[in-house]
């Protein structure tokens, strides 16, 4: 039991990347033409917009420099929720602490990219495009990955952005249209009249849509997609009217968005990637209360999400990963806040996660202009998510070969 959690093995001083690892045997395909992602694996990305203060999220409470550089904002040993060694979670992250103890939470330390950019927009673009070197916003890393999925994605909903106003750049593809679902109402067929009339009308639509050949004409394609759309929306209407989360969700924004994601997954929408965002992390002044609220929202929402999926027997199929455009500077500023920094931790949640702390906490003495240095390139994380989780080829999506992390069980 404990072996999963006693994982504070730093795999070499440079982090935990192992170059040239072979694919995990479970992911090896039996033969060519194998279907991509046969067991319906799903990746949920949670964006923490504004630059999360990773140092007060995964807290190295015994480091002298932490106490020295964070005299007002520092979290003490007594308050932090103990993980392993001298590391603890922010006191408001009780949900994450329970996930950690249950073996469902992995923490990847010190993630970033070379020559960190401290502008929100540019750094967020870098995380979304996986192109730190050049400014090219044509498409995103997930969007590019769609193009290389074995078996193709035609007519399928490849991904869904939930609750965002615009399609996040990471999901932008030059070939596929990814729906932005502001709320689940977008996914319902709007009809009028009594229940019986609506049911009759829907049945009529279904009957008129089906019956094409299995051919490849545009009309055949439209018929198949229309039939799927009607069936899926019927399922979603069903889960919306009597959806019972295995555990209640908190009444916060992220919790409600994740509840919608769980409903779409339960309804078997067929999307491989879901994207949700939580904003407000740009805590330049009076950070303490604001950050505590965000930690509480993040932790309680994701704990509820995991419990709900588990209750529906889906927690093996779903992996959730968080990211933020940067961490914050080690030294607090004069306004009881923190300014834009560099490397930060990422969280992985799900039954498939190898729970524990992966990689060393970045040094608090060897800094880059006052910022934490990354030891794990974010493109290594992306490569791991694409290849070892979704079984999608990653090289073209992330722009090269990057070593993978051993964060999946």
């Amino acid at each position: 039991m404990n072996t999963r959690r006693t994982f504070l093995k730093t795999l070499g001083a440079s982090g935990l990347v192992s170059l040239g690892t072979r694919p995990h045997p479970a992911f090896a395909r039996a033969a060519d033409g194998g279907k991509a992602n046969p067991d319906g694996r799903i990746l949920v990305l949670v964006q923490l917009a504004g630059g999360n203060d990773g140092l007060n999220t995964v807290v190295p409470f015994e480091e002298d420099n932490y106490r020295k550089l964070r005299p007002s904002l520092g979290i003490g040993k007594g308050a932090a929720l103990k993980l392993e060694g001298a590391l603890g979670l922010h006191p408001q992250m009780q949900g994450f602490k329970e996930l950690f103890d249950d073996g469902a939470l992995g923490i990847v330390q010190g993630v970033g990219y070379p020559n960190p950019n401290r502008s929100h927009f540019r750094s967020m673009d870098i995380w979304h495009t996986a192109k730190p070197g050049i400014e090219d916003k044509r498409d995103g890393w997930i969007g590019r990955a769609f193009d290389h999925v074995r078996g193709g994605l035609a007519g399928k909903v490849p991904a869904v952005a939930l609750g965002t106003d615009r399609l996040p750049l990471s999901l932008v593809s030059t070939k596929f249209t990814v729906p932005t679902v502001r709320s689940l109402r977008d996914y319902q067929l709007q009809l009028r009249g009594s229940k019986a009339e609506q049911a009759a009308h829907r049945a009529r639509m279904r009957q008129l849509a089906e019956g094409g050949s299995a051919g490849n004409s545009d009309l055949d394609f439209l018929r198949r997609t229309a039939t799927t759309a009607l069936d899926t929306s019927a399922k979603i209407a069903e889960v919306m009217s009597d959806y019972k989360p295995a555990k209640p969700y908190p009444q916060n924004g992220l919790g409600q968005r994740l509840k919608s994601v769980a409903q779409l997954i339960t309804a078997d929408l067929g999307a491989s990637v879901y994207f949700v965002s939580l904003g407000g992390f740009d805590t330049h002044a009076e950070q303490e209360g604001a950050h505590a609220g965000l930690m509480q929202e993040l932790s309680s929402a994701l704990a509820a999400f995991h419990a709900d999926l588990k209750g529906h027997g889906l927690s093996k199929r779903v992996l959730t990963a968080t990211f933020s455009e940067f961490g914050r500077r080690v030294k607090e500023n004069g306004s009881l806040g923190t300014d834009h920094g560099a490397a930060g931790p990422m969280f992985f949640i799900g039954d498939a996660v190898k729970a524990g702390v992966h990689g060393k906490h970045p040094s608090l003495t060897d800094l880059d202009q006052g910022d934490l240095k990354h030891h794990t390139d974010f493109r290594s994380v992306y490569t791991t998510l694409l290849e070892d989780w979704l079984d999608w080829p990653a090289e073209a999506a992330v722009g090269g070969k990057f070593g993978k992390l051993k964060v999946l069980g």
Partner: protein
Amino acid sequence: MCLAHKACARFIAFKLLRAFVLDQPTDAHITALAARLRAHDFAMRPVMRELLGSKLFFSAAARHARIKEPLELTLGACRALGVRPNLQAINRVSGQLGQSVFEPATVKGWEGGRLWITSASLLQRNNFAMALLDGQMGQIAEPKKSRDHYRELLLSREVRGMAKAKDEPRKLVHLMMTLPEFQLT
């Protein structure tokens, strides 16, 4: 330089055929139009006149051979049903369907064709039909005309299963606008 390359005329011919005639032009279509482009030394006016007056343009192969772009779908439906569109509402719907006016998601522009269509976007296309009938896209007169009238306006062809439809006009119009066939032009 660029124009002299033989791929240039073919590239433009392909784009024109996709935009105005059919989603999946054959090699023969492309070769023929590329030759006309070169013959006119890339002057677009005579090329377009020929293209839009060509046998191909009026042929059966070019009918119902393009998947409507969101703007064609929304504005076309308004036009067919005599609705003066609320352009803000149209742009909002079109944006949900993947085509924000003057704001393509990528610099490559809209790829079009089948990439407009997913189960989600088809539902939203269907919901647009309901919103239009509800008057949310602009004032609309209650549909009262005959089946054949709407069939001609909305589908320009007979569709299996609709030939003997006896639904009341409003339901009939909705059914026609949610048919897979309605997505084609």
